[in-house]
């Protein structure tokens, strides 16, 4: 039994994939807190779709995936940010327009190029087969930088997230802080996309913070819990993915969704009674 559980660790691709999934889960859990408390879950969904356009574009040009999709993702994120700041268009509509158009463009490019095989599926649903050691390094660096931003910019980020008007009145550069957050979201999605996939990454950004929110009323605790839950879902999900021979993205998301269900039932006494009855 133990031998069976440890067997995948003999493969380098699995060790790399596990490292990336753990880091991606933790990273998405961490930045997802800022998305969830703002009620911008739709942003997570939209931004990953926008980055898919960049992914298609960079494979068309034969450019590096991280670079091509990265520039594209950051540009979409900043575009959403600036459109949202103009009053007449709400954030949800801005996200809907920019990101779906970008996703559609990606689909068109893939259709024209006839790429509908492995790389297309991998982009949509995540795959650990292509995870190299350099991917591990890339995501480790991003995780470190994002964690640094969250710790060393803790209060300005919190104030701007909770109460942007008052933060601005207190002399914080809220416009620049919001733009920085958008870039952080875009880069985090970008490096996590490989294992989690475009279609499912929103879950990694939204489910761990939602579980953490049910467990605490404190913001710093929510950050810690959400990161830990995200990382744990990555570890468990990867192993499930190997043993059940399913794609990594769905495996991680199913594990997270089950964790959500368990906490939801436990944390709601009336819900528990209803389930037992």
């Amino acid at each position: 039994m133990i031998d069976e559980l440890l067997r995948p660790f003999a493969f380098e691709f699995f060790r790399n994939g596990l490292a990336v999934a753990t880091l991606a889960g933790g990273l998405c859990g961490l930045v997802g807190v800022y998305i969830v408390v703002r009620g911008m879950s739709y942003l997570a969904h939209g931004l990953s779709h926008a980055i898919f356009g960049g992914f298609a574009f960079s494979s068309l040009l034969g450019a590096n995936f991280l670079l091509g999709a990265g520039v594209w993702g950051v540009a979409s994120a900043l575009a959403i940010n600036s459109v949202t700041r103009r009053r007449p268009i709400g954030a949800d509509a801005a996200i809907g327009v920019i990101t779906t158009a970008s996703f559609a463009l990606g689909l068109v490019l893939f259709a024209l190029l006839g790429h509908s095989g492995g790389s297309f599926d991998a982009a949509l649903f995540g795959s650990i087969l292509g995870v190299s050691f350099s991917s591990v390094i890339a995501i480790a660096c991003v995780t470190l930088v994002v964690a640094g931003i969250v710790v060393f910019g803790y209060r300005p980020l919190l104030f701007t997230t909770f109460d942007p008007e008052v933060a601005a009145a207190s002399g914080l550069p809220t416009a620049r802080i919001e733009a920085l957050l958008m870039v952080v979201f875009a880069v985090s999605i970008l490096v996590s996309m490989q294992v989690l996939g475009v279609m499912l990454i929103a879950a990694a950004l939204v489910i761990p913070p939602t579980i953490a929110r049910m467990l605490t009323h404190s913001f710093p605790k929510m950050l810690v819990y959400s990161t830990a839950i995200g990382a744990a879902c990555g570890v468990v999900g990867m192993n499930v993915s190997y043993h059940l021979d399913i794609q990594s993205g769905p495996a991680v998301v199913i594990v997270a969704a089950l964790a959500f269900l368990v906490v939801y039932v436990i944390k709601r006494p009336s819900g528990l009674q209803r389930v037992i009855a």
Partner: protein
Amino acid sequence: MTSEQLTGRVRRPLVEVSALSLSSGDRLILDCVDLELDENNLVGIVGPSGAGKTTLLRAIAGTLKTTAGAVVTREGARVAYVPQVETVDWSFPITVGECVLMGRTGRRLPWPTRADRAASTTVLARLGLDGLGDRHIGELSGGQQRRVFVARALLRDPDLLLLDEPTSGVDVALRHELLHLLDEIRGDGTAIVLTTHDLNGVATHLPRIVCLNRRVIACGSPAEVLTPDNLEELYGASMSVLEHGGMRLVVDSPAHTHTLFGEPVVLTEEVAAE
């Protein structure tokens, strides 16, 4: 020599709003507003809904782009802003202690310094919130919720404290408590500006009020400013002003007695102001 150099030695007011105009799209929200504030000033901005009260408050805070004119705040002055309770996200995952510490924008790290902790304990105790530091902000009573945001503002040790409708929806006892608190804070040398709908409950108790309806209609003590003429210009409805024990009391004119469901009804000033 420029006039700047000539006046360089004269102490500048804390805030100087001069010929401030502000518009959003085609709509003019503030029209050529002048206002000067100094230490120990306690000023109430009164006017009907949509008069630009909150906009003026935010302009003083320096968060809005002006269309014309200027808001000049004395160099190095610390500004603190207390938002309307209705605009706060009460489900946000934050405890009272964490919320109050946000006021200390000088520090970026998550964990508070010993000085931070001491200051927040003092402020929480002063506002009667001691022992509530670990509570979620949504678990507080209405009066406590208002005081948390005053506490956060006070932790900035502000020179200028701005409050948007601090007494909206509070009962008489709480209103008195808040006004006493503000008077006490003013005693420490902080200038205070608040907006209010409530002429009789709040404005008449303040030393200085500004009647605002896009432009400044009148400015001065309640006794000087609350005249039937000014009020009619402010609200577009005629009102009477009674004197009672040295206090002014604004009531609707008898001419404005309306009938509702066949019964005569006298609108109160608050209803008329809406």
